[in-house]
């Protein structure tokens, strides 16, 4: 595939773009032939039943799949006009520019300050660290709650606070895209709402892709929704429909999508 076909991503319309993406775990095809263009500075939700490859899709964007499982990826993911799976691309750089927030809050067993500062420091941040930590904690709507105890362990915070700390940590490396893998599924409803508000606020600056199990959440926070499902023949995950969230939830193109959204399956 020539670079000529990536002109769309270079004109800045899309933040990231998957083209004929396939992900295998050993011999098992987990995700097949995904073509997906993510809009810049929007929240895109990925929904679908368990095992449909939502998280695999998300991790394919910043090459996290290859870290822990015997995964290999075919196809292309264009980020700023460059295929991130190209051999001369360093996944370490990709992961700084495409940050990630995980399902279970996972702050480092270090101080709150250090949690935010670490990622910036290892990436060679040269500015004023105190300012950066302050700025990120304010952006993550956590500053007022932790400003007097920056030296305390990140693990001393509540679950919702921990997740906002993880978001602060992610934006400290100045990413363009933030991937969120069910970021609120381990939180109570109030903490969940705060995270959702935060996602809306962050979308002004960042492109956000969020995997969620919670359809209401997708409806509340996202501008676009991608619905994935499982192909009954080979058990591989595939993209069924990708549309603006409003259309998806009121008048989906696909019958399977409608069945899923109305709760008839999944």
């Amino acid at each position, binding site marked *: 595939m020539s670079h000529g076909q990536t002109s769309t991503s270079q004109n800045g319309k899309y933040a990231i773009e998957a083209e004929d993406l396939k992900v295998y775990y050993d011999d098992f095809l987990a995700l097949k032939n995904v073509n997906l263009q993510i809009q810049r500075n929007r929240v895109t939700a990925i929904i679908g039943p368990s095992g449909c490859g939502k998280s695999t899709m998300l991790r394919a964007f*910043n090459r*996290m799949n290859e*870290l*822990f499982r*015997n995964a290999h990826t075919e196809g292309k993911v264009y980020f700023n006009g460059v295929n991130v799976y190209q051999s001369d691309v360093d996944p*370490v*750089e*990709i*992961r*700084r*520019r495409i*940050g*990630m927030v*995980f399902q*279970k809050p*996972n*702050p*480092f*067993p*270090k101080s709150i300050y250090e949690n935010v500062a*670490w*990622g910036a420091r*290892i*990436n060679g941040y040269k500015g004023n660290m105190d300012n950066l930590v302050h700025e990120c904690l304010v952006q993550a709507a956590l500053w007022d709650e932790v400003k007097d105890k920056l030296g305390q362990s990140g693990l001393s915070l509540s679950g919702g606070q921990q997740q906002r700390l*993880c978001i602060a*940590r*992610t934006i400290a*490396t100045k990413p363009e895209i933030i991937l969120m893998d069910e970021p609120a599924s381990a939180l109570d409803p109030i903490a969940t709402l705060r995270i959702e508000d935060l996602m809306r606020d962050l979308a002004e600056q960042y492109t956000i892709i969020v995997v969620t199990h919670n359809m209401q959440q997708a409806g509340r926070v996202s501008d676009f929704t991608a619905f994935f499902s499982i192909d009954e023949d080979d058990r591989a995950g595939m993209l069924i429909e990708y549309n603006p969230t409003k259309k998806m939830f009121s008048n989906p193109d696909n019958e399977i999508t409608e069945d899923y959204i109305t709760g008839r399956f999944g």
Partner: protein
Amino acid sequence: MSVFDSDVKDFEPKLEQRHQRGSIWRVVFLASTTVGIVVLAVLLLTIINDAFGYVAIENEIDPETLAQEGVLLEDLPREALIATLQENVSEGLFRRFEHDKPFGARTREEILALIRDDVIEPRVVAQWTLFESLFRRDMISQELAEDYPNSEVRFERWIDLDFVTTPQSADAMEAGVRTAIFGSLWTIAIAILFSFPVGVGAAIYLEEYAVDNVVNRVIQTNINNLAGVPSIIYGMLGLAIFVRALQPISSGAAFGYNEATANGRTVVSAGLTLGLLILPLVIINSQEAIRAVPNSLRSAAYGLGATRWQTVWHHVLPNAITGILTGAILAVSRAIGETAPLVVVGASTYITSDPSGPFSKFTTLPIQIYQWTTRPQDVFRNIAAAAIIVLLVLLLSLNATAVILRNRFSKRL
């Protein structure tokens, strides 16, 4: 029986029976714990029993006969002591003393010690255990009166400061374990210096870098098996590699160190052999510790754009260090008690000079204990018991150091 009326059919709760079965198992578990504790207690008691007790000492010459004009031997002036010594030992021996160190240069105490060793020659003719000394005094006095009428009786603490600070000696009353303590410390230090960095490094590689393929799986299986190889085999390995093949290095000749007598049977050979012996243990324990670090932490670090090494150094190792040190404690405990491989590598059975560096000849505490227990004279059994106590104390203090280190590391997190 339940205080409630039966509410549903189909269930047969048998509460009493279920609880009863639980109680039986509790008793079984309690019993096994008790067996363990009793065995340990018996072991300790036996050792302490041998390390203290009455001894009967007979002198070749009664010190009282050496008194002159009512002045006791201990109070005689120097010249009189030299004269006494000259009168009571052969001319040859006296000349040898003079040759070793002129009498003019010897202090009064040194001369007194010579008289004690070579004229009075106290010998232990009988000794009793702590138990007998405490509770069977009448039996002891009876035996003394019957068998050793000329003997002097005193309560001997076989383990005391002198025992720890004097070197090995052929005379059990004079012998100490200083040489062996230094030998043990030297070999353990070298074993740790070798196996800790190598073992932790291997564990990091196997857990964080190695891909899951046939080669690495074979390596892993072999490491697990090596941990179970009998220690004597490691002794043979050490003998072949460090003592023989690497003799120029292990004897220090390559570094211009010329003590021809050691022939590679040195502290460094022994230390490296013990290091090899505990290497698989260190690797396996470190791997366990590294594996116990949750993957969520690694994900978090990688997700921020950390390299593998940054992830390992900043997150995996600090979180695994507690477990790694626990493993090191276990490994050191194993190494410090090892005897067989050191016998093969060539620990000296009798040396009186402390090891002065990695290329010295050496002996260690377990070797010393083994030597003493194989002597026919009963009295060596007592100093062996005392040496065992020293070994246990040394082991406990090394472990305590590691535990303190570990706690400091884990507090920093």
